């Protein structure tokens, strides 16, 4: 865990721990040995180096973080974070590993006026991640409402929402990535599918030139608000490819 604490931001490390704790809750409730603390793995790909490319991978159920490092440059793309249960009690406190993501998304949706909502809300179900596993290297046509149609305040809310994934990385790296996303904010789309009542199970997506994030509640085996999959991608730099491809 010390490696993870060093590799991620305090916010990112807390998220990792909360997802793992949730998986332990799932193991206890289900009796399935495939879940729980002990089923998470750390991998090093390549030789850790101050200059050459290498990768730190950490994952288990509902977690697949791929940190590619090339000198001082770092990317988290592509990575998966999920939660099941997405809300649980631990030491007398309610824990929501993806709670800020959920709350910020509903806040942004609430901040849209009727005409903006009409653009943002897609009129069909999206039951899973569109660019999840098996879709490396693919990219879809953007949909929803474009950043150019948002107010300054709404753009800040969109950036704040994206920061929940980007902020898993160490602060300096996350700040640089956020600056890049901000630069393209008017070309960044926000899309929503599903109910709009706060706390309901709804899908959303952030899609910009250098960032692609999906949040997809799962209907698998129960309450979809308790089972969330998300993915973080960078259409220009999956696995840090732009830094080490000749």
């Amino acid at each position, binding site marked *: 865990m010390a490696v993870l604490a060093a590799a991620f931001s305090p916010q990112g490390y807390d998220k990792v721990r909360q997802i793992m704790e949730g998986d332990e809750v799932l193991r206890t409730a289900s009796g399935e040995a495939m879940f729980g603390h002990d089923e998470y793995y750390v991998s090093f790909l390549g030789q850790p180096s101050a200059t050459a490319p290498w990768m730190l991978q950490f994952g288990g159920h509902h977690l697949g973080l791929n940190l590619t490092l090339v000198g001082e440059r770092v990317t988290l793309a592509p990575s998966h974070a999920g939660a*099941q249960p997405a809300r649980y009690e631990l030491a007398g406190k309610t824990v929501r590993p993806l709670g800020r993501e959920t709350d910020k998304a509903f806040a942004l949706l609430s901040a849209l006026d009727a005409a903006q909502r009409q653009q943002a809300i897609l009129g069909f179900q999206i039951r899973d991640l569109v660019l999840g*596993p098996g879709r490396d290297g693919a990219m879809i*046509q953007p949909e929803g409402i474009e950043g150019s149609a948002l107010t300054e305040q709404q753009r800040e809310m969109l950036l704040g929402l994206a920061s929940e994934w980007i902020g898993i990385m160490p602060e300096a790296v996350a700040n640089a990535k956020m600056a890049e996303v901000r630069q393209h904010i008017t070309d960044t789309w926000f899309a929503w599918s599903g109910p709009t009542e706060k706390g309901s199970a709804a899908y959303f997506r952030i899609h910009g030139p250098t960032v692609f994030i999906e949040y997809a509640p799962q209907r698998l085996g129960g309450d979809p608000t308790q089972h969330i999959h998300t993915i973080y991608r960078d259409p220009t730099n999956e696995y840090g490819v732009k830094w080490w491809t000749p």
Partner: protein
Amino acid sequence: MVDAVIPLLRCLALLLGLVAVPSLVLAHRLDEYLQATLVAIEPRGVRLHITLTPGMAVADQVLALIDRNRDGVIATKEAAASCQLLKRDLVVRLDHQKVELKLTVSTFPTPTELRTGWGIIALAFATTAGPLTAGTHELTFENRHLPTVSVYLFNAALPRSGAVQITSQQRNDDQSVGAIAFTFLLSTPHEPASTE
């Protein structure tokens, strides 16, 4: 020095590609069969990239259509036959004319992996419509394969060619039916060739 490093980077790229991707698969499917279609529209033609992910609870039902002799191995002929079954259930039209599909890529995990909810069958179909003509077009798609257990996704891929512009996408509620309207502009001499 740079020349010496490049092969190492290529090896690392391969390593990352092979090892990193499975970590994204660790949230397994349970009781649904995900059928996701990505439509790549390029000047040379249209391709469908379809991924099929059976959940653990429906894997045996799906495998019964693939591993027909139930020997625990997906033979080449069995894989081909299951692709035909899927193809039979897909209806694709370009500008209201039904187009045929030609299977170009198919990869099948083992039955054991498919039963975990992590295994993904990846298929690609080319349409026989041929190169696009300049102007506006509409592609419609319907997937009738195993509707009682399936969840569908239908999306246009971001075109790699600037000559193709997606103008709208429509779906029914469960995305088993969709339509993509697009414009193909005559490409310039500088238009990069499609790698599809």
